[in-house]
């Protein structure tokens, strides 16, 4: 049991450039079932990936792999031919919004967008386009989604993950890895790790992922990693106080960030808050969340939250 992705996930790749190919190779090595790639104008060809698995504990994977990934001109063709139920997008920023909408139009239920630097107005249009469609967008500007030993979609290093009891959700890529590694080292492990991305307009919120973890029987606790700006953490805190039945730990980056360097100050007015780290930490603590002082203490904060709930 997991959230979002597992061994039934059939993944296609949009944007098989240098970075896309590198990380697709790593995903295959981790055991992810990559069934196709969308390369407009190169449909009918295939791309071969071969190498050694990264021994991440994926059951039934041979040490060596050799995979021929077929290419398609359009997402719709790829879905029809492969039965893909997830896509990962590495398409460059000017064309990424179109790639997301093409995937949504083709009805792919999970769209993970890694691309960093998509114009905000493009994402405003994407969000509107996705309304009412039965699809979930994760990202953009995120590391992706992983269920340890089952499926890795994105750019996170697979070997730091260990199947376990904790759900991870984060706005920051590299801080996700920090949390994951500490949870592996202290034995709690992860049920999944989801990067929701650092952009102001994204597809999946903290609350969306908290709900998934709350309903997932395998997940016993959750760690969320936020940062300054916006009010997503405050909203998550309010949701946790009302609904969360599992222990939660958190870390907020940016306690010492210099003021006055943010842009569009009027943007914070609408949401009725300034989005400082102190505001977010206070809101989370009031909701019963254990907040780590430094990123090196995320694992121990989770352990503390589990102990308070009688689960460790």
């Amino acid at each position: 049991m997991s959230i979002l992705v597992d061994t039934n996930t059939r993944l296609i790749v949009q944007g098989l450039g240098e970075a896309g190919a590198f990380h697709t190779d790593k995903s295959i090595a981790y055991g992810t079932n990559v069934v196709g790639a969308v390369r407009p104008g190169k449909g009918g060809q295939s791309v071969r990936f071969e190498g050694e698995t990264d021994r991440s504990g994926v059951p039934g994977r041979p040490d060596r792999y050799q995979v021929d990934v077929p290419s398609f001109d359009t997402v719709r063709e790829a879905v029809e031919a492969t039965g893909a139920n997830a896509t990962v997008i590495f398409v460059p920023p000017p064309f990424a919004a179109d790639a997301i909408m093409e995937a949504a139009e083709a009805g792919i239920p999970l769209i993970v967008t890694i691309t960093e630097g998509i114009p905000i107005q493009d994402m405003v249009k994407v969000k509107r386009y996705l309304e009412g469609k039965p699809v979930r967008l994760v990202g953009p500007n995120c590391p992706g989604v992983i269920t340890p030993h089952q499926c890795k979609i994105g750019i996170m290093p697979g070997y730091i993950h260990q199947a376990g009891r904790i759900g991870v959700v984060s706005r920051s890529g590299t801080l996700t890895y920090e949390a994951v590694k500490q949870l592996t080292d202290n034995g709690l492990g992860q049920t999944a790790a989801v990067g929701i991305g650092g952009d102001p307009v994204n597809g999946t919120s903290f609350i969306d992922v908290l709900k998934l973890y709350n309903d997932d029987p395998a997940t016993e606790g959750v760690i969320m990693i936020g940062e300054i700006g916006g009010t997503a953490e405050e909203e998550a805190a309010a949701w946790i106080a009302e609904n969360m039945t599992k222990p939660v730990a958190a870390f907020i980056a940016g306690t010492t960030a210099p003021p006055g360097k943010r842009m569009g100050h009027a943007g914070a007015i609408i949401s009725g808050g300034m989005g400082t780290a102190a505001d977010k930490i206070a809101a989370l603590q009031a909701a019963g969340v254990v907040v780590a002082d430094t990123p090196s203490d995320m694992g121990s904060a989770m352990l503390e939250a589990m102990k308070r709930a009688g689960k460790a």
Partner: protein
Amino acid sequence: MKIHEYQAKELMKQHGIAVPIGRVATTVEEAVAAVRPIVEASGNAVVVVKSQIHAGGRGKGRFVEHPDVPGVNVVTDGLKGGVEATERRVRELAEKMLGSTLVTVQTGPEGKQVNRLYVEQGIDIERELYLSVVLDRATGRNVVMASTEGGMEIEEVAAETPEKILRETIDPAVGLLDFQARRLAFGLGLAGAAHKNGARFVKALAGLAVGLDTDMVEINPLVVTKSGDVMALDGKMSFDGNALFRHGDVTGMRDLSEEDAAEVEASEYGLSFIKLDGSIGCLVNGAGLAMATMDTIKQVGGEPANFLDVGGGATTENVTAAFKIITRDPNVKGIFINIFGGIMKCDTIANGVVAAVQQVGLEVPLVVRLEGTNVELGRKIIDESGLNVVSATDMKDGARKIVELTGGVQ
């Protein structure tokens, strides 16, 4: 990316938005020469001379060299002495303002040098209003905000009289609709010709904001004249840097002299860099980790010299550039490299660091913490380079080590 007021007004004019008649000047002679055509075209003997810098609060700001001169000056000499009197006064002002340092609440105590003036027609103001278009992160849509409290900071209005802020959300599928623009104009108490002009202004501004990919556009004050015209008396605009590729004309308006030289150089290499006041240089991948690295350095008693995110797709060349920018700061007494490789590979970082040290040398302690994609390869490159590098097991360990090596807790 920010632009000057005169540039913002130029863009508004191109989009059919009413702005006062004005001319930009970089010399005293240009400022004086601007007076006559403005007075003749506007029919108003009054002109305004405004400092052009990328910071607000200019009206209340003062010059370091001339504490009696504010950043914005209304010249009324022409009412009695004719256009020659206006020209004389503009000359006096321009001589004092150009090249001098203006300090406002937003520039910090060091102020900013004024290299451009904007000479503008005087306006018979009946009312001052507020108008802006910003992104509402909660809904993922653009919002037009308006208020009757023109001239006040919108933060103050939000804190004291939030009911005076009117909002209309823009549906990206259809844009701001006519009825929404009318509703805002009614909400602002505009009637007759002013209502019609106000609604047209709002709609055009919303179109500009979306069409030009602004981060924020703020008109404060938006003025209603005695004759019912609605005009932008001031205009602040900043743009989404990720969308500049499709706005060559806007990109051309960038004024590098208004930006920190190191930050500009960093941006050319795809690095996100912010100079700070401490002594420990930081080179990190990921904005969240970079912020958290600063937090951790402070937690263990040090002070970061910068925020630096090398980003996900950095090459060896980018990393080398980052290292050079950090070491150029004379305040830097030590460097902490903190990498958790995902899309960024540890060997890329390692090669960049080794190349940079070979080019510029290394005179301060260097602590490196590598983790993630290709970590073994990265560590091997560092180990075999013969560089004098201290390895750290995790972020806190690295922060402690660099603080110790740079003289301990401050």
